[in-house]
């Protein structure tokens, strides 16, 4: 059971927009910044979003992040088939004094 809760799967058609939620508590998301990773099949994870909404260099504008209270959201717009991957949220948990990941969300682009 992951500390952060994500939907197991989401799907949308190419060109559409999809949102992936990440729910936590005041011990983690509520009092820390959130990041998001993309893991393509058979590959290592890649950082997509840091500090709630900042895109590292090279990450397309189609990927955006936000945070409100104890939840965070990753939005991917103008979906492409190449976006099919697993997406993970992560943050620091003060109670655990450790980082934590969400359980991951599998994105299918229909």
């Amino acid at each position, binding site marked *: 059971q992951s500390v952060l809760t994500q939907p197991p799967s989401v799907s949308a058609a190419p060109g559409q927009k999809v949102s992936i939620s990440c729910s936590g508590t005041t011990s983690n998301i509520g009092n820390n910044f959130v990041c998001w990773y993309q893991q393509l099949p058979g590959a*290592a*994870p890649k950082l997509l979003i*840091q*500090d709630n909404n900042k895109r590292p260099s090279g990450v397309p504008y189609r990927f955006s992040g936000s945070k409100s209270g104890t939840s965070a959201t990753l939005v991917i717009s103008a979906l492409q088939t190449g976006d099919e991957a697993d997406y993970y949220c992560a943050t620091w948990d003060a109670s*655990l004094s450790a980082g934590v990941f969400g359980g991951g969300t599998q994105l299918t682009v229909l």
Partner: protein
Amino acid sequence: EMQLVQSGAEVKKPGESLKISCKTSGYDFGSYWIGWVRQMPGKGLEWMGIIYPDYSETKYSPSFQGQVTMSADTSISTAYLQLSSLKASDTAIYYCARALDGYSSEPYFFDSWGRGTLVTVSS
């Protein structure tokens, strides 16, 4: 260019020990936290812990505290993850990654990752 190059796949028997390496280049190894993430077959990512090489300070997830040992050799810019008394349930891909804090007070995100080391534990 920053690189994290992990050691190759391993096949071990239950009860054996293993030390995985992660050789880095392209940045000041000693001045950044470096961490380890486990991914069991078909499962999600698990945050194991991080180490600050210059001080050998470690922060372990409670789930892995006492089960693994992280170390680093600044002379060769290499981090290590030691797994002892291996069990079949230790079968997984283990990733090393550089940890940063951004706006946070804690090094909570990983900006650059190794390709992973597959560890298979089987009798």
